Every structure is written in C-alpha cells, then in structure tokens.
C-alpha cells in the first residue's frame, strides 16, 4: 500500500487529507499523478499538467521521475507559501 496525504488547497478541493491505495502499477511520481487524475472532476483539474502540484516522497521533495516503492508516504500539495 501507499500512504497518500493532501495539504492546503488540494486537501480542501479533494475533501480528503489522507488515503491508502495499492502500490501495484505505480513505479514513479508521474504514474501516481496520472492514476489520480483518471478519477476525473476536481482530480483531473488539479492534476492537469499546467497546474503546479508539488510532491514529497517520504517527507523529501520529489520530481516526476522519482521512484515510488511499496510502503512509501507520498504527499501532494500546492507550491509552499510559508515564512
């Protein structure tokens, strides 16, 4: 399983802060984003290629090509605005 977290605008738009999904057929960050976008509606809109979505794998900033492994914690969120 993969542990998926959503923050800020994504959490509110998806009405979801946390879910677990099977890790089969998800090898990279890109695969996960593509799979989630397939859900349609707000999912496809928020994960469209022209919207900036940041991804962290196991609490480290990650890029589209980065590998995802069984048991990983993946977070999706908008560009950060702290400080």
């Amino acid at each position, binding site marked *: 399983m993969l542990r998926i977290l959503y923050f800020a605008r994504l959490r509110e738009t998806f009405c979801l802060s946390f879910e677990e999904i099977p890790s089969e057929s998800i090898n990279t960050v890109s695969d996960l984003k593509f799979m989630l976008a397939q859900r349609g509606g707000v999912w496809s809109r928020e994960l469209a290629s022209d919207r900036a979505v940041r991804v962290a794998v196991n609490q*480290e900033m990650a890029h589209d090509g980065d590998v995802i492994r069984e048991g990983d*914690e993946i977070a999706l969120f908008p*560009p*950060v*605005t*702290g*400080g």
Partner: protein
Amino acid sequence: MYIIVQENDFDIDSEITRLYQGNPAIGAVASFVGLVRAEADNPVNALTLEHYPGMTQKSLESIANEALDRFNIMDVTIIHRTGFLIPGDRIVLVITAGGHREQSFLACEFIMDYLKTSAPFWKKETSPTGSHWVEAQKKDDVAFSRWGDDNMKNLKRDFKA
C-alpha cells in the same frame, strides 16, 4: 541548532542570546522576523498557517544544515509558527550566528529563500471579501534560484578557506 514549529509567539532577545551564549567566537548575529501584513489594497483580517508535520522539522533541519555548511557559520535558530495569526503577528524567526557579519547575513537570507520555496507551510488569508489560499510568488523562486549559480558556489569555497 534550535528548530521548532509552534503555535506560540517567541521572545527574540532570549532566542538570540541562547544562540550566542557560551560561544565567545561568535561576533555577528543576523536575524529575520516575518510578520503578517495588512495593506490598503489587501486588508487581511487573519491568516491560518497549515503545515505537514511529518516533513516540516526534517525540511527545516536540512535547510539549516546546508546553511551551516555553505557559509561556515556556527549556529542557527528557526522558529516557525502555525495556526491562527492576525496582522502584526510574527510568523517566522531565523537567527544565524557566525564570526563575521557577511557570512551571517548571507546564511540568514539563504535560509529564508529556501524556507519560502521548500518548507511545507501554506497560508490561508481571510479578508473582508472571504478567504483564499495565498498563491506562491514567482519572485520567491527567483530568490531561491540565485543560490544555485556558479557565483554562489565560489562564495561557498571562500568561506571554507
């Protein structure tokens, strides 16, 4: 190194003193305080700060370690608040302590630039017209990117020498 995410306010004098006390080689302490602003064209009533608890501490520690390494400074404090804040409230405090002022100033700016683009915090503003998530600013990416160029790598070598 003292790094904490908290809802409470902080005392700047105590935090600065904690950082330099006991290390007589520290001669230059730079610091930065970020505040909730409210301007005529953006009359903010309140700000709510969300963060990603599992990642925040880790990411701030990694930024602080990078600053210690790059600028050869001696110690760093980062305090970032979360939760409900109003205009005039303090959001973040960064303190850098070193032997000389140039390295302390650079390290402090570096930490703020990295924090603004890499640390998982998000601001939601409430104004008279409703509430919305603050958009990330292009200028923060620009500020961040300058630390990666060759000029800055040379600078790192200078401080290490």
